[in-house]
Structures are given as structure tokens and as C-alpha cells.
């Protein structure tokens, strides 16, 4: 088992109101799976994905990743975990405006103490993979949404992570660009990457091997797609 969540809970406390974004989540994900998470707006999908990506901490429960117990790790250990195991794709791309596409992608390797030459070959390989190499020297603001998202995917995969998390990766894209992104994700999954993706599109969810439906902070159904 790659991922095991048990009794995961996330409370938000702001002034007087207390929101329970996640209730007692139980979830297991195998290595090599492609999971789609669906559910109405505000049901906790992003919160769950953030916790899986360790960029948010649960207020209760345990999160095992392989042999690591992540809830027991400190800040620095989590940062190390992220740079070694995770790739992230966001709905709003989250590229840094001041850096070129190439530099944005390289950023995922910079914190790893990797020699410059290896970084460069990996970056160009990743750019080829998503078909963005001809835009290497451009700034994000000079690219279309689809191109930006492909660059963001290149950044997510350049470190060869064991888990790719994608929060509505096609949410800001038109149908054609969306399909292209889904194509890339499927190909990555075929090559062995574990992928967890949040989406509002049933057709994109159908491309995954398994679908999880959420409601009010809880997992309600988990079905395997017949492929």
C-alpha cells in the first residue's frame, strides 16, 4: 500500500465559526493507481489533496506514505519528503511570474542539490514530454492557459515523483487543451506514476482507474472503473 489515511480530520477555526472540512477520512491508495476525486463545491476535495500533498496539516488522524508516518514529521522533513516524492499541478497553474518557463520547471530540482548539467537535461526532457520546449525562454504571462498548464505539469514530473497530485488541472482550460492534459496524465500513469486528481468533469473522471465521491467532508463512494 502506498497511501493509508485513517481518521483524517481537518477543522478550520476562524474567530467564532468552526468548519469541519474533512470528517474522519479513511482511504487507501495503491502504487500505480490513477484516482479521480469528485464532489460538489466546498465538500473538501482541495483540502484532502493538500493534506495528501503535505502542504496542509490534518487536525487529527494518521497519514502513512509507504513506510513514513507523515503526521509525525517536522517542517524540514516534510519539505524533504515533498521534493523527493511529490509533484503538484494546480487549477491556476501557479507558475512564478518573474521566472521563465525553463526556470519555473528547474525550480522543482533546485532544492535537491542536483548538478546543473543533470538539472538541465531533465528540464529539457520534461519540456519535450509535454510539448512546451519551444517556449522555454518565455515568461508565463506570454503563454496561453493550456501552455501554462503543460509547463506546470512538466514542473510536476521533472523530479520523477512517485505521486502526482492534480487539483482541477483542466478547470481553467477549454475542451481541447483539457483533453491534451488528460492525455499526458494518462501517459504518466501508464509509465508507472501514481496520480490523484480532483475534477468536476465526469468524462475526465472516467479516464481514471478509480473514482472517489465526496460529500460534506466525507468519502461516500469509491468505485473502480471498468477498463
Amino acid at each position, binding site marked *: 500500500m502506498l497511501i493509508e489515511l485513517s481518521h483524517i480530520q481537518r477543522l478550520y477555526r476562524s474567530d467564532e465559526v468552526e468548519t469541519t472540512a474533512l470528517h474522519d477520512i479513511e482511504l487507501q491508495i495503491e502504487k500505480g493507481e490513477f484516482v479521480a476525486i469528485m464532489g460538489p463545491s466546498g465538500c473538501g476535495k482541495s483540502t484532502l489533496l493538500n493534506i495528501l500533498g503535505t502542504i496542509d496539516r490534518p487536525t487529527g488522524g494518521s497519514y502513512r506514505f509507504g513506510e513514513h508516518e507523515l503526521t509525525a514529521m517536522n517542517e*524540514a522533513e516534510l519539505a524533504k519528503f515533498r521534493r523527493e516524492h511529490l509533484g503538484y499541478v494546480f487549477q491556476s497553474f501557479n507558475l512564478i511570474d518573474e521566472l521563465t518557463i525553463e526556470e519555473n520547471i528547474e*525550480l*522543482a530540482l533546485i532544492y535537491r542539490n542536483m548538478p546543473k548539467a543533470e538539472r538541465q537535461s531533465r528540464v529539457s526532457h520534461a519540456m519535450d514530454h509535454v510539448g512546451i520546449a519551444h517556449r522555454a525562454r518565455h515568461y508565463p*504571462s506570454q503563454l496561453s492557459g493550456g501552455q501554462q498548464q503543460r509547463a506546470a505539469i512538466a514542473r510536476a514530473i521533472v523530479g520523477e515523483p512517485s505521486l502526482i497530485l492534480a487539483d482541477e488541472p483542466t478547470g481553467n482550460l477549454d475542451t481541447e487543451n483539457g483533453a491534451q492534459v488528460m492525455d499526458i496524465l494518462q501517459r504518466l500513469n501508464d509509465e508507472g506514476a501514481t496520480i490523484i486528481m480532483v475534477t468536476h468533469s465526469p468524462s475526465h473522471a472516467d479516464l481514471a482507474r478509480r473514482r472517489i465521491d465526496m460529500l460534506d467532508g466525507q468519502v461516500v463512494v469509491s468505485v473502480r472503473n471498468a477498463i
Partner: protein
Amino acid sequence: MMTMVSDFWRLAVRYRLYTALNVIGLGLGVATFLTLALVARYELGWDGFYQQSASLYELQADFVIGSGTFHMAEVHDPVLPAVQTRMPGLQGTRLEHISADIVAPSDISRTVHYDQTISFVDPNFFDLFDLKFTAGSPAVLSSPGNIILSATMARRLFGEKPALGQTLEVTRHGKTSVYRVAGVLRDHPSNTTITTDLIAAIPKTGADRPCDGWNTMCAQTYAVLPTAALRQSFLQNAHDVLMTSPLSRAIEQKDPGGEKMTLRIVPLPSVHFGSDGVAEDGASRSVLFALIAIGTLSLLAGAMNYVNLATAQSLGRAREVAIRKVLGASHTRLMIRFLGEALVLTTLAAMLGLILTEIAVPTVASLSGWSVTLDYGWTLPLLGAVIVVLTLGAGFYPAFMLSSFSPAPVLASARLPAQGRFGARIRLFLVGIQFAFAVTLGICTLVVNAQALHLRHLDRGMTIPGLAIIATENLNALDRQQTAVVNLLRAMPDVTDLSVSAGGTLGRYEVGSVHRAPGQKAFMAQAIAHDEAFFRTFRLHLLAGRLTTSERATDVTHTKNGNPDALAQNFVLSREATRKLGFSSPQAALGQTFMFGDNDAAEKRTIVGVVEDVILNSGQDTLPPPIYELETSPIEQGIIAFRTAPGAMPHVLNALRKAWPTLAPGVPFEPQTMTEIIAESTQSDIARGRLFSIGAAVAIAIACLGLYGLAAFNAERRMHEVGIRKTLGATTAQIMRLLLGQFLRPVLYASLIAWPVAWVFMRNWLTGFDNPVALTPLYFVLTTLLAALLCALTIFSRTFGLARAEPARALRAE
């Protein structure tokens, strides 16, 4: 206008931090500028309020004796009348000071006012120096026996009673004359070199005559010289007068080792800036210019802060501008609007600055001795000008930038516009300049304070604690009063040593010419007559040889009835005296001879001992080096020095105070401990150190305020980026390094500018001291480290929270 203010208020509340930092930074800059402008006005306005100031000149003399040059603000008393006979119609006047004790007979308690300065002047004095009278008129100077008082002096002597018509008893050298108060002057500004508390006409004859013809240089001599031709002819005539005077031989330096005198004229407003010793308040122009520079740069630093924060803040307002433009606002209207905001903000800052100035001026006045006051009639127009210049100068660029945002890209982008690398560079550049200024001042502050500390702990050639002196010049009944005081002290068990000596700079000394061998260059030395207990009492540090003793006849000068009977052949010299004689070390001087006395009358003396130099002043003026002559006969008009057992000084002084009225009735009780004397001499250096410290603190505060604002702005702008970097696996430490590095770099570059500038300033300043501290790299490195540390703390306090936060929070915060 009202809507502008209320709009501003809404903005100020919304951008609380920026507004506060801006107003405080600019307010500090304005306060520093105003305070130093007031100081500059005071210093530059010195002697400027007389109607004839612009054409008044003072005749001064440069006097070369041996290897030293002395500047004299006074010349011989007969010079002016002689020049006036050569130049009929020349307007000139003399001012001659004496010091005397004054009693007002109408005062029942007959309080003696000791050591008052009386100015004797020519009858036409008030034609040149138009001081106003509250009673009497300039004409009273024509009758001898009349005296004119300043309002302050009149109040001091007679209280609220009318002074006019009262009499004064003036006692000098034991002789008393009676004067009648015939005029009272209105108080005038204190920044003048003319002392005018008590004014009388120069007596034609008699004991009161302050000057002794061609024998003393004691007449401050002024002339009205409006044209260059007049000045030229005045100087030439003054020179000719001297050449036909009994002094002509000396002036031409016909005597080897003799003195040489040259004359010059100095415009009245510049007299104040003369070298030390010329005018009592001899201020230094370079200190004044340094202060003006600091004031201007502080204002500039505040303005830079404004530009920085305003441009940074304006990025946050890009959306507002874009929407206003879409709704049809023109570039010009937006410009006016933003300049209006700048006006309100600078006005606020100016008001804060005025309040701070109100606090700073008395502090600076008491620290520096400048009697500066906050004159609103002069300050407010200046403040108005500052507001206008700041609004246009500092407000223009941000307003222009803000009103130039083009709406489409701003509205299309989700985030704050980065405003390109150019704007960011400009901001870092301005921060760099602010820090260059702050670091320069910081280094100067360290050095100035180190020098003050150095002077305080300097080896002064003697043991300071437990030593006190009493001047004997007021003990006029010498044999009885001086002996009574000495006997009382000797009888006290706590007094371990007691000496009576001429005292050198502490009391009096005779200047004598000294040279190594006949025909060689001579220099002036202070010949200090002392008794046998002198070295023991002062604990002068013996460097080589032995001290003189009454047991050897050749060590002692003996006087009988005021005439030398036998002269000491052996002398103890100060280290400096042996150095000036050309000996390489104290040891080398032992047993050697030197010539003592004026050329034709010089006699050979032998050096038997060398003692360490005694340093009493702060070291900024050079006095003749001492040579010590042992005398067995009583020494008059010098000092009584005594040393007490540790800790016993207060007790001894108390006992002495109680006995004093019977020992020396009517004589003021004024013993001084050596600790006090030293403290007094270093006071002005310490005060200057404090002033610099305040200046540096303000400069650094302004720079840090600016940096804090930038760091805050930067944190806000980079929040999202930090979230992304952390998601990609950056640790908190890596993020902190990124954010700190961005700002620390300009501080380090700033040091590269500050170091050489501060080095040049401080090296120049230190050359004025006999005992300068070494200008080591320590001060430079320390200041830079300190600035970097402060800078890091400033940034840290603003960005650590951001760097630590969960990345999810940062990513959400768009």
C-alpha cells in the same frame, strides 16, 4: 480639498503600516533637517546682526615663535590710532578686555562678583556695533567714570531696581575704582564675538588702562572697510605702523630664534570660524558643514523612504487605478489626485517633524552649547518650502508611476503586478543609499565616541584620582592666607602629599625660549617652578634619570627678595621637551645640556630626569612643553596641589570648606579635583559624540523604517511565490535565505560606499588631536555587521511568519 483629505484618511486606514512608516520616516528626516538648519542659521549668522557687519573687519596677527605659530585676535593698542592718522576719516574702534571683581555698594550683603569681564572701548564703539539702549545713549561713553551694562548684567547686579545712576566698585590688582551706571543695553542675540556685559571708555591714563602700549597685544581692533582698495591700504598702513614701531626688529625676524609677526584682516562674520584661540568660541567650519550635510541627507533619506514605500504601495493600488481609468479618469486628473495625497502625507510628516524639532532643539542646545532656539517666524516658512519640495520631488515619481498603469494587463492579471525588475531595482538602490548614509554616520559615531573614551582613559602622565588643586591667585594676602591654607591641609592626616608650584596650565607658567645649542632653532617651553613635593604629589611618571632634590645645591633655584640668588643648573624635562630638543629617547637626553633663555641671555642647563607628558586638555590645542625648575623659596600666584588617602577627598574638602571663611575671608572657595578638570576638558568631545550618536540613530532608524516597509511589501507580493516554492520542497531556512539575501545585498554594497567616505572624514578629524585613536578596520566592520544584523532582524520580523506558514495558506491567499 475636504474630499481629498477624507479620501486620504480612508487610504491611510487601509494602508496603516505604509502610512505610519512613511510619516514617521519623513517626520524624522524633517526634524533632523529643521534642527540642523536652525543650528546652521545660528552659526552662520554669527555677528551678522550689526548694520555694518558686511563691511566690518578685524585686524589679526599671526605670530611665529620658534617652530610654533600663534594666532592672535588682538593687536597692540597703539596700532589703530597710528593707522588713523595715516588714513584720516577711517572708521575704526578698539575693544580691550580686563577681568575684575565687582561690588554694587547698594547691595547690603556686598556680594563680590568675581572675574567679570569689562570691555573698554573707543567712544565711537556704538557707531560700528549698533547695540540698542533701553536707558542712556552711546554719548555717555565720552565721560570717563561712566559704565554701560547689558540688561542681563543690570538684572544680576541690581535685580528689579533701576540700574541707571547706581555706582559700581571695580577692583583689579587690589585697586578699586568707582563707576557710575550711565546706560543699559537691550539684550541682543548671543551669537556674537563681542562681549558687552560691562562697557566703559578706554581710560587715557592711569592704573585701569588695560593695555600696555607696545608691550602687550590686547586690543581687538575693528575697522569699516567697504572696498577692496580700502582694505588693501588699511593692511599696508597697519604694517607700516608696525615697521616704524619698537617692534620692527622682531617683525622682520632679524633675531635668530626670534619671533615673526604678520597681519591680516578677517571679515567680522568669519571671525567666529577662526582657528582655536582666535575667538573664544572658535567654531570649526568643517563641523558646521558636516552638520548641514547630515541635515540635508536625513531629509533626503526620508524622501527616499517615501518614494520607496509609495511606489511599492502603488502596486497594490494598480487595480484601483485601472478601474478609475476604465471609468474615464484622465492621466492628468490621476496625477493631481496622487500628488494631492502626497501633499497631505508630507504635511502630516512635517507637523510630526515640527513636534520632534520642538523636543530636539533644547536637547541639542544643551549638548552642544549652541544657544539655538526654535524661531517659528523663520522655521515655518522653511517648513512650508520643505513641504512643497517634498511633495513635488518625492511625490512626483510615485504619482507618475501610479497614474501610468495601463488598465488591460492589470485587470487581466490575478496578482499584484510585479512592476518589472526596473522598479524593484530602483527601490533596492534607494535603500542602498539610505544605508550608505546610515553606515557612514554609524562609523563616524563609533570613532568619535571611541576618541572621547580614549581621551577619558588616556594616560595623562600622572595619577588622577585623589588629587585636587587650589588656585592661589585670589589669596592676595599671600604670606598669611596661602600659608594658612597650606598649614591646615598639612595638619590633616588624610592629606598624604602637598605641593605648591606655579602649576603650568593649571595655574601659571612662564614661557621661556629653549634651544639645544647656540645658533640652533629655538622653541617655547613652559618653565614651571615647583617645590620639592611636586613630583610626589602629582605622581608624575619618571621615564629616565632622577628627580631634582633640595639636597643638591645645583638642582635648586633660590630667590631672595624676589631676585634670583642662585639658579638651578639641573632640570627635569617633559618627554615632549626632550623630543623637541631633538633627543631620540628620554635616556638619550640624560646628562645632556640645553640652552635656556632669550638668545643673548641664554644659559646652559643640564637634563637630569625626564617625566611623562602631562595631558590636561582634550589634546586639540598644542601648548608649549613643560620644563621643571625646583625652587626652595615660596612660590606665588600658582597652585596648591594635594593628594589624599583613597576615598578621603570629600571629607578633606568638607573640612577645608568649613575652615575657609576664617582662613581666607572674602575669597571664593574653589578647589577642583583633577578628576573634575579632566572631565571638563573632555566634555565637548563627549557632547559631540552624543550628537553624532543621535544623528546616526535617526539615520539608521529612517533606513530601517524604509526597509521594514519594503520587506512588508515584498512579503505580501512574494507570498504566493513562497507558497509555490515550499510546495516544491523548499524549507523555511531556504526561503528565509532567499528573502534576506535580496535585502542584505544592498546593505553590503552600501558599506562599500560608506567605508572610504567615513575613512576620509575620520582621518581628517583625528589629525586635530595630539592623541588620536587608531583608525582600525574594527569600526568599519563592526558598523557594517551591526547594520546587517539590524537589517536582517527588520526583514526577519516581517517575513518569518510567511516563510513558516503552511504552503496551502499562502497559495490560497490571492
